[in-house]
């Protein structure tokens, strides 16, 4: 029961105005951004100052799915910019891809999403640079023929750029928690017999307890879930075979998405036998953004791109949504089993132990894409400090056993485990830093911590460099024996 209740209130409250646009944005990024626009900065000849940020950008924009991550990672490593940018890409892709960021911001809070982005960027580039320095001698010889892979200068089509602007406006106007967006501007009263009783019944079915972080379910929520279900069925008919051409069902599915989003943006007040539909600036904003989206997509976007966009968005929904639903269901059950005291003793404060616990939980628990977010929300509700929570959110997507197994054949065992060690260390550090900031530590203190850590690293590197030089003096022809791929 806890599982189902959690699922129902989750679907009604969070999914629509945050996740639906997020899926369409992710789909647009995959389908409409020509990959060479980013990958041309990942060739061997690109200077470091450009290739590391470009690798992070590629991770954020192009790689929502592991299908893209592994080949692109291997390509950058073997044929392009080398081990450093490749690992920056690998680190940044799951932590800060657009779906994960939007979703974290919508469910947990914009502060944590920003921390995930900024610290992920800093540490992703840091780990890339570290690994490149550590394994400089072993960075493999590139074959000269492949640099053409990173050539070409295609541009984003004008209509596609406009589409991004409108989709992001849709996301913002739908999810921002601003009072101005919620002021009523018009009200329509519709008579619906017995709707008050339906609401009461729903409240009994899904008990409402704000102290436990539970959310209730209203008749509007129930209607939205129903609409979502119908939209899913229509999309299956309309989008699954979209490569054969658009059908009437494609139109039906799109219309249903529009209807659902607009209805989700209306405030509903229930009386015994009637409903007050309150139109707010949020409602009109969502409606306007949707109208603009349809206009741009249908009038200016080439049909082939429109097809690819709808397909990629639908593919993300098909791939991620079922896992997310199963995950949220499981979280609802878990929440009743875990005692808040356990979490509070272990990670209730921003201690070193708490942050390490967060990282370890991330490494040993494998959750599919995005499920880490509802899990994190549960942990937060159970009393976890935001510092260890960030440590967990950084470590979980990077360090699943599955991803370690996937990159081992490409990198080799030594380099993979070195990478894993760095990620664990840096995630704990990210948690500590962010936690200290949440606790109100002064910036100077945080800067001191980070300087100390960097100094420690620098000493280690100096020692390593001396050792390396000593080795080279003894053995003037270093053999690249550690290179598996050569």
């Amino acid at each position, binding site marked *: 029961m806890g599982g189902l209740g959690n699922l129902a209130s989750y679907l009604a409250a969070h999914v629509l105005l945050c996740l639906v646009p997020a899926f369409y944005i992710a789909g647009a990024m995959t389908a409409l951004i020509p*990959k060479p626009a980013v*990958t041309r900065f990942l060739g061997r000849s690109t200077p470091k100052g450009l290739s590391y940020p470009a690798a992070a950008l590629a991770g954020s924009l192009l790689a929502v799915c592991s*299908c893209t991550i592994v080949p692109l990672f291997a390509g950058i490593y*073997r044929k392009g910019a080398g081990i450093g940018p490749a690992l920056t890409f690998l680190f940044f892709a799951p932590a800060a891809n657009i779906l994960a960021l939007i979703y974290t911001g919508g469910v947990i809070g914009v502060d944590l999403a920003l921390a995930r982005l900024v610290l992920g960027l800093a540490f992703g580039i840091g780990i890339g640079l570290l690994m490149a320095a550590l394994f400089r001698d072993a960075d493999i010889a590139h074959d000269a023929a*492949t640099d053409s892979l990173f050539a070409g200068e295609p541009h984003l089509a004008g209509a596609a750029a406009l589409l991004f602007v409108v989709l992001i406006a849709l996301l913002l106007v739908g999810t921002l928690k601003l009072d101005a967006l919620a002021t009523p501007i018009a009200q329509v009263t519709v008579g619906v017999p017995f709707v008050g009783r339906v609401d009461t019944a729903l409240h009994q079915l899904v008990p409402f307890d704000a102290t436990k972080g539970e959310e209730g379910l209203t008749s509007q929520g129930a209607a939205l879930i129903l609409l979502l279900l119908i939209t899913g069925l229509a999309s299956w008919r309309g989008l699954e075979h979209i490569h054969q051409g658009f059908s009437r069902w494609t139109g039906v599915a799109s219309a249903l998405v529009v209807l659902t989003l607009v209805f989700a943006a209306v405030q509903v007040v229930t009386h015994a036998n009637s409903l007050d539909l309150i139109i707010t600036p949020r409602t009109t904003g969502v409606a306007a953004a949707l109208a603009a989206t349809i206009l741009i997509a249908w009038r200016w976007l080439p049909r082939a791109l429109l097809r690819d966009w709808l397909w990629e968005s639908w*593919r993300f929904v098909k791939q991620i949504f079922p896992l997310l639903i199963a995950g949220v269901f499981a979280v609802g059950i878990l929440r009743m089993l875990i005692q808040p005291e356990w979490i509070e003793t272990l990670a209730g404060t921003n201690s070193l132990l708490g942050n390490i616990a967060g990282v370890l939980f991330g490494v040993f628990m494998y959750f599919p894409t995005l499920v880490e977010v509802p899990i994190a929300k549960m942990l937060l509700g159970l009393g976890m400090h935001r510092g260890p929570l960030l440590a967990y959110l950084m470590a979980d997507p990077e360090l699943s056993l599955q991803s370690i197994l996937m990159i081992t054949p490409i990198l080799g065992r030594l380099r993979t485990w070195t990478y894993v060690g760095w990620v664990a260390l840096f995630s704990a550090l990210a948690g500590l830093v962010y936690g200290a900031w949440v606790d109100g530590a002064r910036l100077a203190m945080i800067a001191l911590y980070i300087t100390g850590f960097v100094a420690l690293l620098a000493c280690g590197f100096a020692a390593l460099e001396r050792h390396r030089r000593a080795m080279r003096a003894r053995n003037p022809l270093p053999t690249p024996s550690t290179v598996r791929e050569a």
Partner: protein
Amino acid sequence: MLDIKVLGPGCANCKKVEAIAQQAVLAMGVEANIAKVTRIEEILEYNLLSTPGLVVNSKVVCSGRVPSPAEVSTWLADALEAALHAN
């Protein structure tokens, strides 16, 4: 005889590309051998940065997206013509 390879570790898009290639081959009535390449090491031997990839007679014709059946037909026709000229 056309040699068609679908490159990809087995995600939804790779399966889609395979289905579309099969459909194009059937529609054109040409003889073709469609193989799936799923091992990353083998995929990397081709010149591409993202999967799914489609290879016709050892030439990468498309990568990183799902082509339409009409596009695949054009590539198959081109490959047939090239093979004819080579003989």
